[in-house]
């Protein structure tokens, strides 16, 4: 059974980084550097997102002695999920303006 838990802050950061330029394919290491996550945290997040159909993956062919590289970007469902997350956050902020001020 698929559980629909609220995503962790780290997962939200990964989703936002991917949603910043949704058409662009991203490398795992670059993504980890951008969201300040260690590889041990990033890959389980990517696996979960792919399992939920929010992330699509592809392979970039290897060049010379370098091996093929895995690429990631959001699927259509992933983009909708990020949009819904952003909207939910906006609603929460509107309902609790003091909280938003304290977060700022």
């Amino acid at each position, binding site marked *: 059974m698929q559980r629909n838990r609220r995503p962790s802050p780290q997962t939200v950061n990964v989703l936002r980084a991917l949603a910043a330029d949704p058409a662009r394919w991203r490398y795992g*290491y670059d993504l980890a550097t951008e969201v300040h996550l260690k590889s041990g945290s990033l890959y*389980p997040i990517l696996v979960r997102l792919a399992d939920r159909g929010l992330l699509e993956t592809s392979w970039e062919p290897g060049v010379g002695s370098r*091996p093929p590289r895995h690429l990631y970007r959001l699927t259509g469902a992933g983009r909708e999920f990020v949009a819904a997350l952003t909207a939910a956050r906006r609603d929460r902020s509107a309902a609790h303006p003091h909280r938003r001020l304290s977060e700022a």
Partner: protein
Amino acid sequence: MPFFIVFLVTPIAVAVALYRRNPRRFLDGPTEDAPLRLLRWAVSLLSPQRAEWGHAMLGELGHLDGRRRRMRFALGCAGAALILPPWGRAAVGLWAAIGITAASFTIYAGLTVHYQLGVGGWISLAVVLIICGGYLLGASALLRRPGIALPGLLGGVFATMVGLSMAGFTALDQVTFIPSPWQQWVRVIAVPAAIGAAGTLWRRDPAAGRRVARLAALSAGLLQLLYGTVAVAILGSGGPPDAAGGGTVGGTVNERLGNNFLDLLVGTLIIAMVGWAAAALAGYLLRRTPTPAAPLATDPVQEV
């Protein structure tokens, strides 16, 4: 005597075996460094459904330069590979091992508080926790190897039951048992060797036999620790006086818990090493045994 043989031979045997398996293991080359080997090992533990993610990690590592950066990336990925589901049946074995460890730790902590074992007691408890954490990590890696979980866990239960049968099942037996020479040989040589050899014959593969022996060693160690800790909880400072404990209640309990910890380390090492040697020997004998020729489908005489 058997203890001395095992302890003397163990480091030499490990060094020789590792060197024979891969002489370049200890050398770094331009294409084969420690991070790559670590990550390859971790990726090999992933389930077939997650194999693509293992290749993704290896592919990413192939594009990283700098030893430190590569090592940090590989360490992180190795940690991720160790926890990535799905595990299937192996998860059941691991949860059982975690439950046994948690029970031992809880009772141990309760004894530390109840008998006011002081700072030394808490330090011992922390050391036991760290060692058991290492055991669980090792077990989690072994459990996910195909065909290892069942024979390994059965081997651990078998070794524990043989040990308890010889010592006796009561709490007092756990504290007072001193094995006779033949019991020592059975515990130290016969049982671990039987586990290693049976593991090899089960899978017809000496590598599988060695893994079975290691998993049996870890699971037997954790089971015996639980049984011994429960025995101390039941007995407390009762039973025969313990001179090494200084004659005080806390000292006696502390001494008995310390003995359990030593049994955990020594027992695990012995089963793993003797089982490993027996698995290798069984594999060697298997290779030397000629396989019977397949019967001919037709009689050549009739064909002529």
